[in-house]
């Protein structure tokens, strides 16, 4: 198998890796906000449920969580799981990353000085206006470095989808490598992940720069 055939065969896996990456971000970022609000809720029941959820998500391996999301419905409720593989992967990733993002958002929101809320309140801003106009923009700036770390980890974590035999770039690399007895697929996969993270770092740096006009 030539280098270019390998690259071509692996390109479908690269697309799938990108799909996991973007869909996870798409769902886990908003979900993370809900998690952070739940975690900070005045309602003790909601707050404790969210606390337990976060501790499970962070306290068990993501690979195990993926297996539970995929096989759970069948073993627990005898629901057939054909055609459900990709959904299970996105569910697993989104709920796992939402827990991490939720904690980052919470730390960011709680780090805001009380005076910002008070100044806004005295000026007559509503709670919603205060959050979206005054608090959120500053929180985003504060949490961006921590979010960048998580996103970079996510790029690499997408390879865990291999545990559900999903044909993302890492799974394909492993298959080609053993069938062709070649080291090259791993090298290609490695370069692919590196480039993807380079792009992530570049994009996040641009975002940080765009918010560096104030302190």
């Amino acid at each position: 198998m030539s280098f270019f055939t390998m690259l071509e065969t692996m390109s479908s896996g690269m697309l799938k890796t990108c799909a996991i990456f973007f869909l996870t971000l798409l769902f886990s970022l908003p979900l993370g906000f809900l998690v952070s609000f739940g975690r900070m809720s005045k309602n003790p029941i909601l707050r404790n449920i969210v606390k337990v959820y976060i501790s499970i998500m962070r306290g068990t391996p993501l690979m195990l969580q993926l297996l539970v999301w995929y096989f759970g419905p069948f073993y627990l409720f005898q629901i057939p799981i054909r055609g459900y593989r990709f959904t299970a992967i996105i569910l697993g990733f989104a709920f796992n990353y939402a827990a991490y993002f939720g904690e980052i958002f919470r730390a960011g929101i709680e780090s805001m000085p009380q005076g910002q809320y008070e100044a806004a309140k005295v000026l007559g801003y509503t709670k919603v206006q205060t959050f979206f106009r005054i608090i959120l923009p500053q929180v985003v700036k504060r949490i961006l470095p921590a979010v960048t770390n998580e996103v970079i980890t996510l790029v690499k974590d997408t390879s865990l989808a291999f545990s559900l035999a999903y044909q993302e770039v890492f799974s394909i690399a492993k298959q080609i490598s053993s069938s062709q007895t070649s080291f090259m697929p791993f090298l290609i996969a490695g370069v692919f992940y590196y480039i993807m993270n380079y792009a992530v770092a570049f994009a996040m740096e641009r975002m940080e720069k765009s918010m560096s006009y104030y302190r």
Partner: protein
Amino acid sequence: MNLLEMKNIRKSFGELSVIRDISLSVTRGEVVSIIGPSGSGKSTLLRCATFLETIDSGFISYMGQVAAQEDATGAITYCTHEEMKKIHGYFGLVFQNFNLFPHYSVLKNIMDAPIVVQGRQKSEVREEAMALLEKMGLADKADFYPYQLSGGQQQRVSIVRALAMNPEILFFDEPTSALDPELTIEVLKVIRQLAEEHMTMVIVTHEMQFAAAVSDRVIFMDGGIIVEEGSPEQVISNPEKARTRQFLDMYNNR
């Protein structure tokens, strides 16, 4: 009619009784200074007046509109959300540490609330904001961000931010306590100018000479009560109460 009317206000934090039956009314154009040792409840009183804290008992009204009162059982009820929105437009508060919005430019700090909260025309608000900045000698700082300004400039911007809402009354909570002496002077000058224009103000301050010069009335607070109250001549120059004298002596011998 009193612009602000506070009657028999009480406020505790848990076991700690911080405001113990204070009444304070302010008429239009009046400048009232509140002095007193730290921990005497001055900030808490302003925070109750501006609804940053809820009172435990008493009565608050602005311009004759009741904001908080006791119901038949003695429990405090605040007015409706809609009424409160209106009342919020009557006052402004200047904080000790400015609390400017760091992600907004000076101009946006000033213009945002009049536009977003009061729904006023952007062009009109901008004109007014620029005129106020001009008056404060800050016109060239309109596009700066708060971190680029000195403390004195930040505090003057925060005063402009409050003024841009066209409040009837302005509260100041130790507006110069976070500033160096020379920056203090420029902020006090601005407040003095507002006093000359008959802006209604309640000022918590440790600047005795300033208080004596600008105030129509001085209030000395200690331990959550008003110990002595009257003209600056009475309270600062010839205090009747031993506690007031003791406090002022401590100040003069600093």
